[in-house]
């Protein structure tokens, strides 16, 4: 972890308000100008268990969690037991209770009577808020900053609750202040002024995607709750009236995708969303969207599998399944954003692509993206123009003698009519069909229709944005990864840089700072040169670019959050390049920054 960064982790039982407290603290720090990345862990139950929320707070942008924690706020003994060994040298443990017998090695334990303080404020439920106050004091932030956030968080909960929580924060803060405890990590010394726009926000990739969906003119979202996709539905349900979209909770995921196909056929931009289990159920209908050439966006927020797996933990293990899901052969587009900003941007493109090419677009997230809090800068929050395309107008239909819904074209896409249009009659047919949509099992026609649908692939492949290469053109090591590993790899690359040379902004390639999506930095003269090829538009596979880069790479490292290295297999299948160095993680946890740094150093002979 760099000097200008601290990690704060709050842990306790489910029901203690761990995430709520963490988010309030994160937002307060964020408003002070620091970059914040929030990561939560919890088991699949509502009370008990072990829940944590960790914030990495930095002078600049930060997009990953570290294993080491500088301030550990333990609301129960379990947190002390499980997490104390991750407290860094010179770090602090805040704990309410008997600290005798707790061996902290290098860290310092501070006893804060959280229960007593919260009871004084009005109830033990506010214990998390007393802890917040204490943590805030330790990092040198003013009390008002956090009280403002508490006010926002509890604005709908009534005066009494608000007052209790505010008092608890104050009591926690003043407890350490009155004891003349010295703040340890004074983030005021980071010179945070003017580093960020006031309108930057923190949000999860799910929240970002939901915003993007509204901007893209999605008017129908059908889904069945499944972690970690569910919060998309929560956000859309909340906003459906103002955004004029309909959220339909179905009896199962099969019905969800079916209803989305129905709405899309009627001419409405429509989507469904689920996790791997639900997506497994959707696969037959996915093929129906394909053969009827219905524009459809399906969000698949992965969690560990197979079956129920670890329902609240993360994994990137559905890539090959998604690319191959459903029987038969048909074209599809697969997009996997790497963070919340990309989720917001790319989901808008997903709707456009689905409409232009009249096929299913599968949008991959995972628990880590869906439930971590990212910074989305004002600059990145952009609504794209909505262009409704691919339709045949009423006028054209009136002048055409015999409109054909599935007319063979060079591009593979045909202008579509929607039910209700005069002269536009069509059969949207799950049987393979002739140009009008009538069932046909005639051999010449079958081949024509298969070729028509697949004609789209070539054009799509040439039009999709290419994978982004971060870092120098020539590097000792080239990392390749997809989706959610983006932030942690980029942060690790920066850290390596920091440790080998004076901190240079130039070497730091995150787009939040450069303002550009691409950053092939040739001026970098560092000796530890690492580049990173990140794939978001994964299918059709960006063969040429990946092949060109990997063929030139001196040493390649594949990083994936799964057991079998699925992207690696795809790369071999599509380019013939066999990647030998694989760093795979499949314990339900995401990569932490130290792990990537360690792996890079290992491969670079450090």
């Amino acid at each position: 972890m760099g000097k200008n960064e601290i990690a704060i982790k709050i842990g306790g039982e489910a029901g203690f308000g761990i995430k709520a407290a963490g988010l309030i603290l994160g937002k307060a720090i964020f408003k002070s100008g620091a970059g914040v990345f929030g990561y939560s862990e919890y088991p699949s139950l509502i009370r008990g268990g072990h829940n944590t929320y960790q914030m990495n707070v930095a002078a600049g942008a930060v997009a990953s969690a570290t294993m080491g924690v500088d301030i550990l706020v333990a609301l129960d003994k379990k947190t002390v037991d499980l997490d104390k060994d991750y407290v860094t040298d010179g770090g602090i443990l805040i704990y309410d209770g008997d600290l005798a017998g707790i061996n902290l090695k290098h860290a310092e334990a501070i006893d804060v009577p959280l229960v007593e303080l919260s009871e004084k404020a009005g109830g033990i439920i506010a214990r998390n808020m007393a802890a917040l106050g204490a943590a805030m004091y330790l990092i040198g932030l003013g009390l008002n900053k956090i009280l403002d956030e508490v006010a926002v968080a509890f604005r709908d909960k009534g005066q009494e609750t608000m007052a209790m929580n505010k008092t608890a924060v104050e009591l926690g803060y003043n407890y350490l202040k009155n004891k003349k405890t010295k703040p340890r990590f004074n983030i005021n010394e980071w010179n945070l002024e003017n580093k960020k726009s006031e309108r930057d926000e923190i949000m999860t990739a799910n929240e970002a995607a939901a915003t993007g969906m509204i901007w893209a003119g999605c008017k129908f979202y059908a889904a069945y709750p499944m972690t970690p996709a569910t919060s998309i539905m929560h956000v859309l349900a909340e906003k459906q009236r103002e955004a004029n979209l309909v959220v339909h909770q179905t009896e199962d995921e099969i019905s969800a995708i079916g209803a989305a196909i129905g709405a899309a056929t009627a001419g409405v931009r429509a989507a469904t969303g689920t996790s791997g289990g639900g997506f497994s159920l959707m696969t037959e209908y996915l093929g129906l969207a394909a053969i009827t050439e219905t524009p459809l966006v399906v969000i698949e927020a992965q969690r560990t599998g197979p079956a129920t797996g670890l329902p609240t933990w993360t994994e990137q293990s559905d890539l090959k399944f998604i690319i191959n899901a459903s029987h038969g052969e048909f074209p599809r587009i697969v997009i996997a954003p790497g963070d919340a900003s990309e989720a917001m941007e790319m989901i808008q493109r997903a709707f456009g692509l689905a409409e232009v090419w009249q096929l299913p677009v599968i949008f991959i997230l995972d628990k880590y993206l869906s439930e971590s809090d990212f910074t989305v800068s004002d600059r990145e929050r952009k609504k794209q123009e909505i262009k409704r395309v691919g339709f045949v107008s009423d006028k054209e239909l009136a002048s055409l003698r015999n409109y054909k819904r599935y007319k063979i074209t060079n591009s593979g896409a045909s202008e579509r009519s929607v039910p209700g249009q005069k002269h536009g009659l069509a059969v949207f047919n799950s049987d393979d069909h002739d140009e009008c949509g009538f069932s046909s099992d005639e051999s010449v026609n079958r081949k024509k229709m298969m070729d028509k649908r697949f004609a789209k692939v070539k054009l799509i492949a040439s039009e999709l944005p290419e994978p982004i290469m971060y870092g120098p053109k020539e590097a000792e090591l080239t990392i390749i990864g997809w989706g959610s590993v983006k932030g942690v790899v980029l942060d690790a690359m920066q850290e390596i840089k920091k440790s080998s040379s004076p901190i240079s902004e130039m070497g730091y390639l995150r787009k939040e700072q450069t303002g550009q999506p691409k950053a092939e930095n040739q001026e970098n003269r560092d000796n530890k040169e690492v580049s990173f090829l990140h794939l978001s538009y994964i299918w059709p596979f960006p063969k040429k670019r990946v092949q060109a880069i990997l063929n030139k790479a001196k040493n390649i490292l594949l990083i994936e959050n799964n057991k079998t290295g699925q992207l690696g297999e795809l790369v071999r299948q599509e380019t013939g390049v066999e990647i030998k160095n694989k760093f795979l993680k499949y314990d339900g946890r995401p990569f932490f920054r130290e792990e990537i740094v360690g792996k890079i150093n290992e491969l670079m002979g450090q």
Partner: protein
Amino acid sequence: MEKMGAEKFNTDFLPTWCPGCGNYGIWQALKQAFLELSLEPHQLFLVYDIGCFGNGANFIKTYVFHSLHGRTLPVALGAKIGNKDLTVIALAGDGGAYGEGVQHLLHTARYNIDITFLVANNQRFSLTAGQASPTTKEGTITKTTPFGEIKKPINPLVLSLEAGASFVARGFSGEPEHLKQIIKEAIIHKGFAHVDILQPCVSFNKENTYEWYRNVIYKLEEHRYAPHNQERALDKAREFELQGKLPIGVLYKGARETYEDKIPQLEGESLAKRGLKGIGVLA
């Protein structure tokens, strides 16, 4: 019974059903109902299942969606929300409606969205050559039940009544005029309308023939039955099991606010129109 005008709903494809198949009667009744309700082909969105009856997707000139086996209702619901101006009808066999996709029947009835569900019930999986279906009588011998079906059949009308369908009826394809009347009422009804249609399959159901049906059915209207009481409708739905008589006609009709009427976002122009009229589609 095809009257002048109904042929406008014919496509260039002639039905491929076996001669004598009950699906012909349903097809005729359907087209006639559209004609008498002055529905134009482009105002109709028909969602067909997979099966013998489902093959009807090719024989009727409207907007047609030929869906997956058991999966008509979700598509129909989505289309109705997308464009509430459409007259949306889902059409399935007993296998698709009461087996593969029975959950959709229960829930769509519960939502009470304004669509019509027509089920051709021939007590067999006919397209796949006559296996037992969820409505096959106990003891029936088919290729998958060579020693006789050992499962109890489903009573579909009891299911949809219990689930909250606001219109429940039974028709007989051998009485197309009567069936047409039911279909018209079902379409006019605001809310989910379920019509179970007794459909002889001359190839795979040698027991429930036209003649067999004529001996057990009677028309509810001829017995001064008023279809406004759910309990009585349930009794009627069970009458065959209890008394060996099969009432046809409308068993239940109740006023209940529809799903789409409870969604304020759907007030005014349809979602599809709002999004597309700007580019000259549904303008």
